[in-house]
């Protein structure tokens, strides 16, 4: 599942910022394109890049764009610290260094012919969006697409227009909930696990892909197992402090795995013993 890098993986390639779109009050999507004359890079859904903000530092960011578009890379970034703040404040025409793509991808092959259940929490929808694009573009290769998405509040929800578009397709079921609803919100209020009772699932023929805060994912895993999914059919995206992105530095070691190289996408069965351990 891992992508192939033909250049020196430690060497950032210059990309130009072509667009910065505000998704929520603190989250932005950046569209980057290779500098003139340079080739674009393909990626697999679920992979990430290391983004250099020159003079500030380097960040691991999941690719949130369409894997079929090879001329651009899109990243959805939440501004929570100095480096992410600098990244989302880049202007059109600014240069950003890109290493990667790195890591394992969502199991698009293993999911072929089956229903795909996408469960996302908060900004966790960003690493899942490429696999949603992939399923929608290869509709005949997959069964139903069920998207369960939980956010903090309506204003924190990502890609609201796209969610509405995806929901209009009869082969999809899109359910969205928020922890805190405002007066104008007419949707569900409650945590993402409460959506399962409204989802039309066929567990025996489904593959689940989950991304969100780790606590949320632990609750979701339990719910998926309760629903009847096999542990081998559940995949999740893990996050740790990634530095080199190629398994040299050990910063992101998690038990026997390097999140950057062996992950960030893992089978639940691989992660289960580790998720339940304190201080890992």
């Amino acid at each position: 599942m891992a992508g192939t890098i033909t250049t020196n993986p430690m060497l950032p390639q210059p990309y130009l910022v072509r667009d910065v779109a505000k998704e929520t009050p603190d989250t932005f999507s950046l569209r980057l394109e290779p500098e003139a004359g340079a080739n674009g890079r393909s990626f697999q859904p679920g992979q990430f890049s290391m983004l250099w903000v020159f003079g500030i530092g380097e960040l691991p960011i999941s690719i949130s764009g369409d894997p079929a578009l090879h001329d651009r890379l899109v990243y959805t970034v939440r501004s929570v610290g100095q480096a992410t703040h600098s990244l989302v404040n880049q202007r059109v025409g600014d240069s950003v260094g890109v290493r990667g793509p790195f890591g394992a991808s969502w199991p698009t092959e293993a999911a072929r012919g089956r229903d795909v259940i996408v469960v996302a929490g908060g900004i966790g929808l960003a690493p899942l969006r490429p696999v949603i694009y992939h399923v929608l573009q290869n509709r005949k290769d997959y069964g139903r697409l069920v998207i369960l998405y939980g956010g903090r509040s309506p204003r924190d929800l990502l890609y609201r227009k796209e969610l509405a578009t995806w929901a209009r397709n009869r082969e999809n079921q899109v359910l969205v909930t928020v922890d805190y609803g405002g007066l104008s919100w007419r949707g569900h209020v409650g945590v993402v696990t409460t959506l399962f009772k409204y989802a039309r699932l066929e567990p025996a023929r489904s593959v689940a892909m989950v991304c969100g805060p780790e606590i949320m994912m632990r609750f979701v895993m339990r719910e998926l197992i309760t629903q009847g999914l096999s542990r081998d059919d559940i995949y999740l995206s893990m996050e740790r402090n990634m530095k080199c992105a190629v398994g040299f530095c050990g910063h992101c070691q998690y038990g026997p795995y390097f999140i950057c190289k062996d992950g960030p996408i893992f089978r639940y069965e691989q992660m289960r013993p580790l998720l339940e351990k304190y201080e890992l």
Partner: protein
Amino acid sequence: METLEGIIAEHHFFAGLESYYTSLLTGCAANVRFAPGTYIFKEGEEANEFYLIRSGKVALEIFAPHRNPIVVETLGAGDILGWSWLLPPYIWKFHAHAVQDTRAIALDGKCLRTKCEENHDLGYEVLKRFAQIMEQRLEATRLQLLDVYAAR
């Protein structure tokens, strides 16, 4: 045409309940419908029923001074609404607000409490089912309180 007893018997909340008990429950049940905007019950009122929601959406709300109502949870088709009828002092703790056209089966809590007191086997079956709902809601509330999507 679906009978009330048939609907109750097929509801997942009453799965596995003996038909004798289903008949007893049906004696306390009625079909109800709430237009959007209707309050099904309000905080502080006597809690004398619970509902099996068949369709629509209900928001559980709480009021705070100088603020808009806060929605703590929404419930939809297949959900159970209300358990304050089961435990003293039988008072609603939240408002239940139909945000969509909502159809439900209302079960008379007073009637059911009497039947549960007379028949403890039925009482245990009912309590077991409500305990499960309470456990699920408590877990969801704890997860909600963790505010896992907040910036750290």
